[in-house]
């Protein structure tokens, strides 16, 4: 049926108007800088004035730059927190979904870190990780464990950042799972029970597949976010950590751009990172398509 009533057409115009606001905003504040930085990636732009076209030189240097690889490795390493966070969040969501007393309180408690400023949290955790007086080591001392100087040690600085990231993201992921769990029809579980499935089996064959779209969403957004990790590193290890072992790609890009007047080179790295994220996300969508199913 074709709707061509006057009301419909007027509303359609209004709709475009409403859509226009974010679209124009996107064009001005995201698209233009994006295109500009793509151009910048092919120049020796220093951010002050000089900007000569130098072709692919920046990209060739990116792939020869040991600190680019190191920061890329650090970034990927720190994404180990993603599966850990997902498992923990799902377990928490399952527990809270059982309607135990105090559910609301727990929900609030787990959600507080999510809404707190990341810079403030980073400062708090920096104190907590302090080798001498930090909360973490004081806690470990109760069990007679002498904790390391977390942020000054090449082998502990990344795990320390991961722990913090998991803690910070837990509430958000948990809430998404909680919503997903509550939308699983109860009749499925009843049917499974009648067929003699135990708790684990119904979790494996009902709950997990039912929350899969949420899992997919979380993985995709977390990987995109994880690839751009910056603030906590900048606050907690302002020099990129011992032997540059906590520097992420974005941290390195930022140092190059704003510390060393190499905006062109930094743009090239940003472009490589952007493509990397794009490809990873594309692969995830392909995999997801293959494994997806539909309820009739």
């Amino acid at each position: 049926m074709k709707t061509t009533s006057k009301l419909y057409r007027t509303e359609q115009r209004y709709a475009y108007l409403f859509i226009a606001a974010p679209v124009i905003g996107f064009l001005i504040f995201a698209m233009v800088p994006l295109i500009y930085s793509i151009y910048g990636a092919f120049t020796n732009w220093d951010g002050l004035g000089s900007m000569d076209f130098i072709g692919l030189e920046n990209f060739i240097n990116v792939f020869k730059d040991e600190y680019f690889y190191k920061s890329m490795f650090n970034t990927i390493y720190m994404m180990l927190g993603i599966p850990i966070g997902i498992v923990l969040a799902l377990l928490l969501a399952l527990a809270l979904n059982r309607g135990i007393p105090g559910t609301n309180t727990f929900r609030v408690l787990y959600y507080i870190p999510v809404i707190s400023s990341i810079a403030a949290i980073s400062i708090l955790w920096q104190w907590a990780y302090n080798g001498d007086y930090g909360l973490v080591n004081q806690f470990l001392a109760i069990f007679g464990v002498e904790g390391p100087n977390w942020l000054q040690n090449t082998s502990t600085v990344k795990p320390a950042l991961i722990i913090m990231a998991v803690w910070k993201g837990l509430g958000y992921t948990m809430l998404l799972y909680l919503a997903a769990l509550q939308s699983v029809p109860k009749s499925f579980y009843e049917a499974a029970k009648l067929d003699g499935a135990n708790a684990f089996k119904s979790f494996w064959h009902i709950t997990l597949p039912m929350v899969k779209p949420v899992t997919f969403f979380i993985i995709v957004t977390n990987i995109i976010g994880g690839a751009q990790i910056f603030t906590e590193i900048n606050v907690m290890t302002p020099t990129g950590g011992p032997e540059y072992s906590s520097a992420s790609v974005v941290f390195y890009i930022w140092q190059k751009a704003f510390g060393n007047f190499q905006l062109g080179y930094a743009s090239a790295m940003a472009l490589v990172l952007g493509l990397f994220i794009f490809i990873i996300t594309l692969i995830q969508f392909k995999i997801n398509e293959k494994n997806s199913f539909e309820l009739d």
Partner: protein
Amino acid sequence: MSKSTKKLGSLILLTIMIIGSILAGCSNSSETSGKTKDGKTAITFMFRGQPQELKAYEATVKRYEKSHPDVKVTLVQVAPDQYDTKLKAAIAGKKIPDVFFYNPAQVKAYVNSGVLKDITEYVEGSENVNIEDIWEKGVAKYRFDGETLGQGAIYGLPKDLGPFALGYNKTMFEEAGIPLPDKDKPYTLDEFINVAQQLTKDKNGDGKSDQFGAGFNIQWALQPIAWSNGADWIDETGTKVTIDTPEFAEAVQWFADQQNKYKITPSIAEAQTLDTYQRWMKGELAFFPVGPWDMATYAEQLKFEYDLIPWPAGKTGKPAAWVGSLGIGVGATSKNAEAAAELALYLSADQEGNQALVDAQVQLPNSVTVAEQWAADTSIKPENKQEFLDIINDYGRGFPAEKTYTAEWYDEFFKNIQPVLDGKMTAEEYVKEAQPKMQKLLDAAIQQEKQAKK
């Protein structure tokens, strides 16, 4: 025309107006015309600092406005860790503040790219401020003739000079019955270790030391040792990284040995600055660096007496120390360069303003005469403030990267030094390994400088 189309028309108009005003908001009208609405000269001042400093600067700006009733200054305060990013964003966006703080290491880059204004005529022609009275070495950091730093036109004035002296815990020495260090004769490196070892003690008898000789951060304390040992990071021409000399390796090794061999510092895991700083504050360290900006905190919180001495000296027998600085520059695109230069002068050398900062004990007086009176004033702790002035006048130097186009090559030195400090690698091996990497980055910086000059 139907009613709804009219409505739509007005809505579109409204949207255009909103977007237009957002865009207009980006370019502050006073910046384009250089005037405020009521016809005053408008200038912006971008700065950073500790809370006491911010207050002192605000007061100085107010006084400036009072004596210049036709000028309106817009203050832009930026958090210290965001300052450089924001300044560079402002420069890239062609919105250079009229007056702003900047690091002396950036003089070359900012002059070459037309960010800084040559303010020589304003400074030398000023009636209110006598340039002769501001530290000559301070002003020299902001001189550049297009080729060499330290000479030629003035592109900024020092906000202050920050000589980094060595402090010692007087009370601890007295309790241990060790003769106090001589303020005129530096320790040799061996003497320093010897004294520090005597002061490293296990006071509560739990088998672990709880009082230490020192606890330096290599990033801020290696320079005096290396320099006084006759070594440096870079040669005089500014083109060659010279860390692979025996003198340099010796200095680095000595630095690492403080911990690994002589055990005069808290253990590896505790070597973080924050920790040693806290230990010093608690009176657990015999020696610790002191900058003028520390004085207020130390006066308030230290429960012991402290004083200043020269850093221990290596082979040359002469002490060395670094002098930091922050500059006040005028934007090259400023519409009101004269008023802006006047404000820069005011901030750097205004008597009252300077006095407020000195009273807050966060910096040295910028005026040589005031500084000398201040150093002689025994009511202000520490007693030997003259050491700060000696560093400026006699044996202080700028940071190694101050004269190069970027500091990347210098930062590289500290990036991978941890294994040496941990005793897993010798200093000799390290300097051999790091030199080529640093040289490559320095070459790149030189190349970058040439490019920017074109």
